[in-house]
């Protein structure tokens, strides 16, 4: 998210090996996400991921989400609803401090997870949900060809195949009456949370003491 810029500058001064790669999950491309990157004066690596490829690849189901990747290309944290700061109605001030700790202490940070915990934390998809990925991709192709009817058909099918993905639902709702945070989204969220589910994978920021 563009609001990471302040933290990026701060942490790069501490450790120049720290990098942020930010992926806008936006099927509308530059027109939708570009101005927001620009407004944030972002200097870290910025990608507009029209196909939501990164969410598919890392089994992420909502935004914002984050993954920590160490110097050897190993994942040391994954699948968390993450914010740079508390924005009032949403966000949290609890996450940025643990990123700071990781940048300062690397593998010795108590917030680094071992391989087993990472494997446990990776979101698991059903075979139907796996099929949602190429289905959503097909819908996005049509969307960018201007074929709204086919886009809607395959985006809807993707949501049915993978009801756990908030990305698929909200990307679609962006282009409908009510928008991505409108009544349909609220109803779904209330329904899922009422059934004991979570909108975001909850933050698990207890330090690992036996590291």
């Amino acid at each position, binding site marked *: *998210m*563009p609001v*990471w810029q302040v933290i990026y500058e701060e942490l790069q001064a501490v450790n120049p090996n*720290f*990098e*942020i*790669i*930010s*992926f*806008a999950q*936006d099927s*509308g491309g530059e027109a*939708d*996400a*570009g101005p*927001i990157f620009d407004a944030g004066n972002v200097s870290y*690596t*910025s*990608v507009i*991921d029209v196909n939501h*490829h*990164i969410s*598919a*690849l*890392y089994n992420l189901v909502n*935004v*914002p*989400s984050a*993954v*920590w*990747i*160490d*110097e*050897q*290309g*190993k*994942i*040391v944290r994954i699948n968390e609803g*993450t914010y740079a700061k508390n924005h009032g109605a949403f966000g949290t001030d609890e996450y940025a401090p643990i*990123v700071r700790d990781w940048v300062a202490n690397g593998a010795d940070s108590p917030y680094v997870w071992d*391989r087993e915990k*990472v*494997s446990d934390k*990776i979101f698991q998809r059903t*075979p139907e949900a*796996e*099929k949602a*990925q*190429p*289905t959503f*991709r*097909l819908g996005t*192709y049509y969307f960018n060809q201007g074929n709204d009817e*086919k886009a809607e058909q*395959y985006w809807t099918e993707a949501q049915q195949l993978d009801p756990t993905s908030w990305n698929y639902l*909200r*990307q679609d*709702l*962006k282009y409908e009456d009510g*928008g991505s945070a409108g009544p349909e989204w609220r109803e779904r969220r209330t329904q899922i949370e009422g059934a004991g589910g979570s909108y975001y994978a909850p933050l698990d920021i207890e330090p690992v003491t036996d590291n």
Partner: protein
Amino acid sequence: MKPVSQLGLALMSVLCSSVALAQSTTVLYNDRVVEIDQTLPDASDLWVKPEDLTRINDFELKPQGACLEDLCIPVLQDRDSELYVQRQGQDWFNVTELADMLQQAWIADYRDGLWSFGGIPFERRGFFESAEAPEFALPDREGNLVRLADFRGKQVLLVTWASW
């Protein structure tokens, strides 16, 4: 896998069809959009020339089979099979059959000649079993390819967000 009777029918339909230009075919895989000039007409499966197979998913048809890095799916090339046929001296390879064998999800819009493939589970073992960060290569806003492999030696915070 298809039941044998259906498989026989599928093979029959291939055997009976003449090699002709099918409608234009587009294949989506990862961030790729691959246009295919010529396919072997088939009601349900996607048959392409071996060079197009490589353009789609990096698999190469070698004497020992269809190979991607250290993975090789055996393909007999002296006879027709569910993966391979030869017509008028041209080799054809069944991409969707390979996908089924690899448990790779796919979907087709047959009317528009569009095929979309999901990730290959074999390539994702390292992610699930040993916390390896999956590789990607996507263009940044200036069009430069961003590859995770280029960030070795860095601590990377990968974040997703959206305008919606």
